[in-house]
C-alpha cells in the first residue's frame, strides 16, 4: 500500500497532496492572487511558493496522519505540456486538413514524425507553405521559476528521507486524478486550463493528443479578457467571468476558430480586447454580455473538437479536467453533446479540477507501482513536456 507525496506548483497554485491506494489523504493548496487587471509573473509566483511550501508540506502530513517513514515516494511536477516546435506546429496545422482517419493512423506512432518525413497531399500544400514563413510559434506554458521552486523542495525531501523521486507530467496528473475521482474507464479527455487546451485519448500506452490549441490556452484567453475588464482575480478570473456570464443577456458575435481538430483563441482574444471598450462605451452591450458571449463561443469550439475526437474514436465517455473544467456552463454544454451521442460526461469539482498536489501524487502512485523512478541526475524541470512523451506503462 504505497503512499505517495505529491508537489505541484507550475502556475499560481501550489499544492501538496498525499495519496495511498486510490484514497486522497490530504490535499492542501494555496493560490497566489494578483490585483485586478494584472497577471502573475514567474518571479513573484516563485517567491510566493517558496514562502508557503514547507508549511503546506507539514499541513499535508498532519492532515494525512503520516510521518516521513510512511511515505514511499516523492512525486513532483516535472513539466507541463509545452511549446510546439516548428515541425509540430506545421504538423498540427496540416493535421487540421487531413482526413480524421489519416490523423489517427499517424497518432499511433508518437511523437509526431519530423517535418521532413511528412508527405502532404497536394490539397494541404497551401497551408504548409503558409506555415513556413516566419511566424510566432505558440509558446507552451510552464513557468520555470515556480517549477524550480517546487522541484527544489521535492528533491531535497527525497534525499533527506531517502525516498525515490518521480517527475510527473502535469497533464497526466490531471488525467489520472480525473479517472480516479470519476471512475471513467477510457474517456476522451478535454484538458482545459490557463496553460493548456488539449483533447486527449489513450491509445497503446500513450495519452495521444488528438487536438489542441495552436496558440493560447482557453483559460489564458479568459484570464486575459478578465484583465481588460479589470475583473477580480480572487478566487480566480475564470470563476468571476462565469458568475458575470450568468447575468449576460445578449450574444455578441465573436470570431469562431476551429481548424479541424485544433482551435485558436488568440484571434478571438484580440478581437474582443479591441471591441470591448468601444461597445461598452457606446452601450451596445454590458460586461456581462461580453463574458457570456466569450464563454459561449470558446466553449462551443471546445465541444466541437471534443465531439470530433469522440466520433473518430468511437468513445462513449468524455472527461473534463483542468481548471476551466470547473466551469458549470462548459460542463452543461458538454453534457448536451454527450447526451446527443449517447455518451457519458465525467467532471470533477474545484478540489481536483484546479491544480493540486494530490493529482501529482496520484499520477506518481501509478508510476511508482509500474516501476518508474526519476534519478537525481534527471530530476530537473522542463517547460516542454508533451503529454504524449510519457509511456503509460500502468495501463493496458
Amino acid at each position, binding site marked *: 500500500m504505497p503512499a505517495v507525496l505529491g508537489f505541484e506548483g507550475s502556475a499560481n497554485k501550489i499544492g501538496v497532496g498525499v495519496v495511498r491506494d486510490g484514497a486522497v489523504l490530504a490535499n492542501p493548496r494555496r493560490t497566489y492572487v494578483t490585483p485586478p487587471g494584472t497577471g502573475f509573473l514567474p518571479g513573484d509566483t516563485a*517567491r510566493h511558493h517558496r514562502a508557503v511550501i514547507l508549511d503546506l508540506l507539514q499541513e499535508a502530513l498532519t492532515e494525512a496522519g503520516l510521518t516521513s517513514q510512511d511515505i514511499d515516494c516523492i512525486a513532483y511536477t516535472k513539466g507541463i505540456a509545452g511549446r510546439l516546435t516548428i515541425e509540430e506546429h506545421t504538423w498540427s496545422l496540416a493535421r487540421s486538413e487531413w482526413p480524421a482517419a489519416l490523423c489517427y493512423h499517424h497518432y499511433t506512432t508518437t511523437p509526431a514524425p519530423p517535418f521532413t518525413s511528412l508527405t502532404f497531399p497536394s490539397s494541404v500544400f497551401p497551408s504548409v507553405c503558409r506555415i513556413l514563413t516566419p511566424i510566432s510559434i505558440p509558446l507552451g506554458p510552464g513557468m520555470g521559476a515556480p517549477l524550480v521552486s517546487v522541484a527544489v523542495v521535492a528533491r531535497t525531501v527525497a534525499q533527506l528521507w531517502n525516498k525515490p523521486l518521480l517527475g510527473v507530467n502535469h497533464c497526466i496528473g490531471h488525467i489520472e486524478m480525473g479517472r480516479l475521482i470519476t471512475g471513467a474507464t477510457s474517456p476522451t479527455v478535454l484538458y482545459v486550463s490557463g496553460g493548456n487546451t488539449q483533447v486527449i485519448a489513450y491509445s497503446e500506452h500513450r495519452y495521444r493528443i488528438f487536438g489542441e490549441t495552436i496558440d493560447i490556452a482557453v483559460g489564458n484567453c479568459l484570464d486575459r479578457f478578465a484583465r481588460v475588464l479589470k475583473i477580480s482575480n480572487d478566487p480566480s478570473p475564470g470563476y468571476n467571468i462565469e458568475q458575470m456570464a450568468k447575468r449576460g443577456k445578449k450574444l455578441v458575435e465573436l470570431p469562431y476558430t476551429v481548424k479541424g481538430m485544433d482551435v485558436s483563441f488568440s484571434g478571438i482574444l484580440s478581437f474582443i480586447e479591441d471591441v470591448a471598450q468601444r461597445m461598452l462605451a457606446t452601450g451596445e452591450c454590458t460586461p456581462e454580455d461580453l463574458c457570456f458571449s466569450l464563454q459561449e463561443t470558446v466553449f462551443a469550439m471546445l465541444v466541437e473538437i471534443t465531439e470530433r475526437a469522440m466520433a473518430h474514436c468511437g468513445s462513449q465517455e468524455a472527461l473534463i479536467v483542468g481548471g476551466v473544467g470547473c466551469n458549470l456552463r462548459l460542463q452543461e454544454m458538454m453534457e448536451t453533446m454527450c447526451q446527443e451521442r449517447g455518451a457519458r460526461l465525467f467532471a470533477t469539482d474545484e478540489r481536483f479540477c484546479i491544480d493540486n498536489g494530490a493529482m501529482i501524487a496520484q499520477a506518481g502512485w501509478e508510476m511508482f507501482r509500474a516501476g518508474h523512478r526519476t534519478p537525481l541526475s534527471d530530476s530537473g524541470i522542463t517547460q516542454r513536456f508533451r503529454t504524449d512523451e510519457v509511456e503509460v506503462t500502468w495501463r493496458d
Partner: protein
Amino acid sequence: MAAASERVGVGAMQAPGDGAGGADGADGAQILDDGAGGATGSAGSSSGPGNPGGRDGTATSGTVAGEAPQVEGASPAPRQGGEASASASASASGDASEKQVLEFALTVPFLCYVDAELTYQYLTSSAECYHEAVHTELTVIGSDLFIRLTAEDPVLLQISTASLLNQLSMVVQTMQHLVPAIFSRPRPGKGG
C-alpha cells in the same frame, strides 16, 4: 581542519526562463539562516577572491565560454563566515581589453559534511547549460560548500546567481524544517 574530502561539480547554470513572462528577475542575494552558516552572497561586491582551497586551480571538466578565468589574488584557504565576492578579471586569452569575465563566488559553511554533500548533490544535479554562457563550479571541502559562477554577460551572471541562491536558500530551509535537530547542534571548531 577536517580531512579534505573534495567533490567538484562543474556545469553551466541555467537561468529559469518561463513561457509567459520572460526570464525570472534576479531577486538578489539572499541572506541564509545562521543555522547554515550565515553565508551571504552578493554579485556586486568586489571584496577579494572566492577561489576555494582544495582546488589547485587546474581546470575541471565541463563547458565554459572562452578560457577559464584566473581570479586575481586567489587565496588557497577556504573562507570562513561565508563571505561572498565577485570580481572582474581579464580573460586568460590575453586580449584583456576586449572581454571581461565576471565572477561570483560564495562559501557556505555547513554543520557537517553530510549537509554540504547533500546540498552539493542537489545543486549539481540542477545545473544545466544555458547557452554555455555561465560556468558553474561547486566544491565540497570538509563541511564547506564553495560555489563559483563565471560569465562574460553580467545579465546572465546576475540571473544565474539569483537562481542559484534561491535554490540554495530553499534547500537549506527545507533541511532546517525537516531536520531541525541538526541545525541546533554546536559546530565543532567553528565557534558555533
